[in-house]
């Protein structure tokens, strides 16, 4: 499949940017820690589009982008695990997972 001829790189990049900032916006506006985490996952996935697209379109002689995406996935998994543990911990202490209520440390 000759993707380069069909779909320009720019499309991929625009897609990645859109997803990245949608994810960021998710982190910024959602009031639930779990949904914020989903935003983070979106951002990581957006970066992965970039890595794979660059690798595929521009630098196919090595698999750097590919492996980077792979590692990012693994780390995203670890991050999710840690996040879930912390969220459960928060839930235990604060009886809520709303980020607005977790603001005792300030100023």
């Amino acid at each position, binding site marked *: 499949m000759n993707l380069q001829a069909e779909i320009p790189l*720019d499309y991929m990049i625009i897609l990645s940017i859109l997803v990245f900032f949608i994810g960021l*916006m998710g982190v910024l506006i959602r009031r639930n820690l779990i949904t914020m985490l989903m935003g983070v996952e979106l951002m990581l996935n957006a970066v992965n589009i970039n890595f794979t697209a660059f690798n595929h379109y521009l630098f*196919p002689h090595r698999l750097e982008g590919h492996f980077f995406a792979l590692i990012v996935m693994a780390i995203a998994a*670890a991050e999710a695990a*840690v996040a879930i543990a912390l969220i459960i911990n928060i839930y235990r202490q604060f009886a809520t997972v709303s980020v607005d209520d977790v603001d005792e440390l300030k100023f």
Partner: protein
Amino acid sequence: MTGPKIIFFILAISIVVFSILSITSRKILRAAIYLLFVLVAMAGLYYMMNFPFLAAVQLILYAGGIVVLIIFSILLTSQINSKLEPPRRSHLLSGALTAIAGIALSAVTILQFAFKPSSKPAIGTDMRTIGLQLMGTGENGYALPFEVISILLLAALVGSIFIALKNRT
């Protein structure tokens, strides 16, 4: 419109739409499901770009692992039926502004860049090549990251368990 193009657009549109839905849906479980759709569509994209291994990992790890984790945590911490509070208007506004500014800035910066494709011959993306590189210790070998990430996962998981566990007494 050729076939790949159509497929790409379907994937792209579903990624964007489900992303937006995932961050706006007021039902938390639905948000998770929308995220799952995004992740699956991503896998499709990888497959299109000739990275079948990556697509598979995406499906297994993300769709299969992370989303499940998220759903578990939702079940543990929230009532599934209750609607989420809508975002604050100020947050919405500032968030949207930041996102739009960010999109504009990145798009302008990236799209005006003249990418220089490599002229070297492409390398295959078959499992053999990937496996060899993943375990290689020399040039283009990824054994070291592979090892390190194992430690990372180990530490993160044990630590997570430690934190998430109720106190041992």
